[in-house]
């Protein structure tokens, strides 16, 4: 394990298990938390995240329209009041979110109080700038710039507090998700069958047995890693290839694999073990239960700021359904939801006799990108 000299003292102590690790089964080695995993990070909402932006815009608008509604005597007054408010509210709101998104990287390394102060300052600055620009044009809000700035700072503070509460209440859910990630990782069935296959190959084909054990070791090395880590998509795809190589030895020609990976997409960061459980699922439900030759597709493409992943396997019908069906899908879906909110999606469909899993997530390029 590498030493993190710039970390807090509490994180530096080697004997202290990482918070949330108590629930892990014994014998599972979890690396120490990295600096980026400090809980204070969770308190700062990601203004660049579509889901969070949407929620903030909606709730702030509802709040202000509600205030107008309380004092309005008629529908006409209410509507014109809302329009008045919206004329200055929306520019300020969007300017604040834009600045917040831009300044996020700068604020992230700072301690929590400074992050809060920075965000409040951004909301004040955004208000003053917008009113300075719009004031002369519309005549609205001029002269009340400082009052509006104070109002903006109050709203911003309320949102930060809400985000803090939300992150607190999310902690048990995160720990649970981690545990699920561990549980869904490997089917015992796969482990014992693979070991049995290696034993079967050792005498007749020692070379292949060797490479199978190497792949198996590599796979288990990844399985022992901290599930919260992120890896590049290329690494995750390599893991899938190793997994499929093991299965190919076992299942023989029944397993065919087709991959189409766009190079431009494979640099993105993804949660560890995002795809491997889905590929394992595809083999478990699409290839193993049938005597016929079956093909697994793994396609990755970049679409603007998103990466689209497709995993498809032959659909053998309801009858071939095997127990533990929804586990892997539900697990990956939950992790996407926790990490990307509305921007990460997992959808499934049966099309032309094939079961398709589509994953869409935002392209994240920086190797030092922080979680949420």
């Amino acid at each position: 394990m590498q030493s993190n000299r710039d970390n807090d003292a509490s994180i530096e102590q080697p004997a202290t298990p990482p918070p949330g690790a108590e629930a892990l089964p014994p014998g599972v080695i979890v690396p120490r938390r990295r600096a980026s995993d400090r809980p204070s990070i969770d308190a700062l909402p990601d203004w660049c995240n579509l889901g969070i932006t949407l929620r903030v815009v909606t709730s702030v608008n509802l709040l202000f329209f509600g205030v107008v509604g309380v004092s309005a005597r008629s529908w006409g007054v209410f509507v014109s009041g809302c329009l008045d408010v919206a004329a200055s509210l929306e520019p300020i709101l969007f300017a604040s979110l834009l600045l917040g998104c831009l300044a996020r990287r700068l604020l992230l390394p700072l301690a929590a109080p400074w992050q809060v102060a920075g965000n409040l300052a951004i909301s004040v600055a955004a208000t003053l700038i917008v009113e300075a620009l719009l004031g002369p044009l519309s005549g609205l809000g001029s002269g009340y710039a400082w009052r509006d700035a104070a109002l903006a700072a109050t709203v911003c503070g309320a949102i930060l507090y809400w985000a803090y509460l939300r992150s607190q209440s999310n902690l048990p859910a995160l720990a649970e998700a981690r545990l699920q990630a561990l549980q869904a990782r490997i089917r015992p069935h796969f482990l014992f069958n693979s070991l049995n296959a290696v034993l079967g190959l050792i005498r007749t084909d020692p070379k292949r047995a060797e490479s199978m054990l190497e792949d198996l070791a590599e796979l288990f090395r990844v399985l022992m890693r901290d599930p919260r880590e992120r890896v590049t998509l290329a690494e995750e795809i390599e893991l899938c290839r190793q997994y499929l190589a093991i299965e190919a030895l076992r299942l023989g020609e029944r397993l065919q694999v087709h991959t189409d990976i766009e190079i431009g997409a494979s640099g993105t960061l993804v949660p560890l073990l995002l795809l491997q459980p889905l590929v394992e699922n595809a083999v478990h439900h699409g290839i193993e239960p049938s005597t016929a030759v079956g093909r697994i597709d793994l396609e990755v493409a970049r679409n603007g700021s998103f990466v689209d992943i497709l995993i498809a396997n032959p659909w053998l019908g309801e009858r071939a359904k095997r127990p533990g069906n929804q586990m892997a899908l539900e697990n990956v879906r939950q992790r996407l939801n926790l990490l990307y909110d509305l921007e990460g999606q997992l959808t499934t469909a049966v099309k032309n006799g094939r079961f398709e899993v589509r994953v869409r997530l935002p392209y994240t390029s920086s190797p030092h990108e922080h979680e949420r």
Partner: protein
Amino acid sequence: MSTSADPPAGPPSAGTARAAARVLIVDDEAPARARIVALLSDIADQFSHEVVGEAGNGREALALIETRPVDIVLLDVQMPDMTGLELARHLAALPVGPAVVFVSAYDEFALKAFEVHALDYLVKPVRAARLREALERVTRLGAVQPAVIRAAARAADPRAREMISVHERGRVQLVPVAEILYLKAELKYVTIRTAQRAYLTEESLVALEEEFAESFVRVHRNALIARNAISGFERVEAVSEDEAGGEPHWEVVLRDLDERLPVSRRQWPVVKVLIKG
């Protein structure tokens, strides 16, 4: 380990000087079969045997068993198409079926079911000593009762079978359940009727009714009809010579067969709902 003179066909435990046991290996994964073959050759000195074949799925195994006598089947539980459990049930239908030793990588349900019914099984990766032990035990005890295999298989995998196996002239015939029009109890046997022909099985109508409750409905004390084979019902007023005893009653009209089956008065309320719903 092939013996030059073929020992007389019969139960393996019968001979005083033990003849080489004829072993068939059934597993869908080639490396897994190779492993068993290697282990068998390791224990050849302690357990006299002969590998008479390898099969990659249940159908291959059934075909092999028709062509040559087999004493012991080493049977993988999790196989595509026809699972080891289903194959074991078909083998149990043979008059002199081979003894079965189940092999499973990891299947909690199956292993629990085997334990409950005191069936011997091996877990993958198999060890030579354990394999020998299982082979010796099964040679000593012979094949397990078909009823025990059936019960264990039902416990391990509660889904209904897709095939019913029928034993005819030393061969195992597989009748797809989807093709069956009706099942009718007659004296000692149950008649299985498809559009083409009829088969006989020794399985009980009660057990069949329980297993195929989803696709079959009881219309009479002695008959189950496939729900999708019913095309309609007809009221018979006239005195007829069949078992309904001449009273007015309803009869099932079948879709693909020009044959009527009486509906008993007791079952009519259950059956008539089908046509109205």
